[in-house]
């Protein structure tokens, strides 16, 4: 069992968990993830590691289905049934490049350790965080610390630039020569950014989040098509060149269990929480 040291709702529906572990942090590098299972009947789900020290790892997640709802209901002192990791390949960190990082949703947490490493290796980092409205943006100061420039975008204009990433990104790239774009967030955001940067031929690395079970390469549920080849996101990824990803396949595979997820959630609400 793995003790929760801290639990906090950062913004509506997005939570931070700090989990006690001396073993997992030892080898953790930016871009890697852990698998957690809340309780004995729980699923195994992958979550990006957003920070770690000698005694703990931290994850940020969005509350959407049964597993994340159960996770969100935990409090400090509670225990997780499973914590395993680090998993996946770490982010490839270039040196002395001009990098634009784009993040939304739980991806805002996920980019934190990566931009920290980008900066440590003398890259010039600009970070864009985006959300529907002001109260969905978080960690601006933490992220700004490792970015030369932080740009906030909200669709309703309540903070920073008003609009959507697709209104902003092409113009930005025109004015600011960029060697690499690094994007974390929901599949829609990573897809959208990849579509926007493809015609501009700016290399774009995206963190993907397909369904996983063991996350050690054993089951193959996380397979994604990259450059017309089948890859396992858990051991070959989860970061890939966004211009080479078959997005249609990824999106449909992510929706495999939509109906089950609905059923599972109503079961949870009725049976477990009355």
């Amino acid at each position, binding site marked *: 069992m793995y003790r929760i040291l801290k639990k906090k709702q950062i913004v509506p529906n997005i939570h931070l968990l700090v989990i006690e572990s001396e073993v997992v942090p030892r080898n953790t590098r930016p871009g890697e993830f852990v698998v957690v299972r809340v309780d004995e*009947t729980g699923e195994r789900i992958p979550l990006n590691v957003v920070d770690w020290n000698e005694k703990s790892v931290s994850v940020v997640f969005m509350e959407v289905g049964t597993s994340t709802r159960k996770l969100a209901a935990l409090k400090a002192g509670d225990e997780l049934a499973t914590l395993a990791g680090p998993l996946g390949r770490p982010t490839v960190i270039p040196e002395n490049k001009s990098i634009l990082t784009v993040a939304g949703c739980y991806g805002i947490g996920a980019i934190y350790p990566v931009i920290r490493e980008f900066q440590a290796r003398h890259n010039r980092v600009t970070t864009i965080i985006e959300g529907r409205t002001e109260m969905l943006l978080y960690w601006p100061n933490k992220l700004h610390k490792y970015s030369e420039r932080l740009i906030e975008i909200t669709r309703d204009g309540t903070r920073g630039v008003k609009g959507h990433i697709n209104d902003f990104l092409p113009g930005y790239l025109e004015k600011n020569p960029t060697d690499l774009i690094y994007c974390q967030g929901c599949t829609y955001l990573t897809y959208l950014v990849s579509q926007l940067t493809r015609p501009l031929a700016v290399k774009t690395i995206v963190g993907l989040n397909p369904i996983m*079970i063991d996350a*050690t390469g054993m089951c193959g549920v996380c397979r994604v098509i990259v450059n017309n080849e089948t890859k396992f996101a858990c051991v070959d990824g989860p970061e890939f060149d966004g211009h080479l990803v078959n997005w249609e396949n990824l999106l449909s595979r992510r929706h495999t269990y939509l109906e089950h997820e609905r059923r599972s959630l109503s079961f949870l609400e009725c049976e477990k929480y009355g």
Partner: protein
Amino acid sequence: MASKIVPKKTAMREQPAKERVKNFQEVPYGYSEAEAVQEAKRCIMCKNPTCIAGCPVEIDIPGFIKAIAEGDFRGSIRQLKEKNVLPAVCGRVCPQEGQCEKVCVLAKKFEPVAIGRLERFAADWEAEQGEAPVPKRPPTTGKKAAIIGSGPGGLTAAGDLIRLGHDVTIFEALHKPGGVLVYGIPEFRLPKAIVYREVDYMVRSGVRLVLDFIVGKTATIDQLLKDFDALYIGTGAGLPWFMNIPGENLNGVYSANEYLTRSNLMKAYLFPRYDTPIIKGKNVAVVGGGNVAMDCARTALRLGANEVHIVYRRSKTEMPARIEEIHHAEQEGIIFDWLTLPIRYMGDEFNWVKEMECIRMELGEPDASGRRRPVPIKDSNFISPTDVVVCAIGQSPNPLISQTTSDLKVSKWGNIEIDKATMKTSKRACWAGGDVVRGGATVILAMGDARIAARSMDEYFKTGVW
């Protein structure tokens, strides 16, 4: 003497096929004490028994059977456990017909002694008596062994080493111990309670078990070697193969590993009580002809499929599955499409598999495996409806360890290379065995490898000579 021999094995009662396809409970019930004694008495106690050599872990087969024949069940299980740490498992899943029972002297004229059923009986009898007492630990040698993977090989190596007084730690990547016995083999063939009982016995014997620890990631082999004197790598064959045909990434197409892991390890058959879902197809196609394919097909039936097909490119004779498994599958109504090869899967507008195209095959000249090579028959293509496909065509070793251990020699298929006499790898203080060396093989061969390795590790601990 020979005239008194009962020609046939004592039958084992089992759940009727009609009933069992609706549940995940074990199919055969096992022998009663009277049945076991009756069967044990069929053994003629050869002076020079051939059966022992047929067993990869060298169980004293006539010895444990004699004890059963005399009603000394405790003596029987004691003898078994001297050589086999997992008798309840092997009694159920070993391919005895190709090993001990194949070389049983009786088999020349009659049915062989039902060695597997008797092994199972002795182990189950012990379990019914309550918690099995653990043997006294010998004085510790102070040598530390790490076992990577808690499957049948890892458990065997751990059992052998702890008995010799070494300090043993097992590292398991998943959240339950047992490896393939837990994620792969279904409940109706091997109840998980049996595996956990055996693991518990191991832990009570002094073995340390660390779950959720992925060697290669959580710690590398080199990091472990700082804390341990020797390592045994028994990580199995956990990388599923696909056929690389169009449509394999459609929704509803599973690898056997995924399908079985969902159902067995994650208990998706109990969804929504358990959170992990599984698609319950109406018309399921399982591609492949081994035991894993049989397990997937029979799982699909129990999940409620109307029709389950085994699609296999060779004929029944070439099927690698155990005869008993094929029989069980046939009894349960699995449809066998022999000499049939899938060539593509077609999806609907939402990317869900809805049809598969296959081609008929015929058998040509023997290939490298000695089996006749299947050759496509021109223009024999046909399309059939399907809503779940399970690809059970084999797997290769998981690369997490080999990728992170530079001086560990592996073949181009990713199998770890070893010296067969000792199971030593190319890396000092590292041994390996089972599927990570062999590719997809059997539980008992993995156990045999582990036994050889444990012996060699013990010698290394004593002499320090690599």
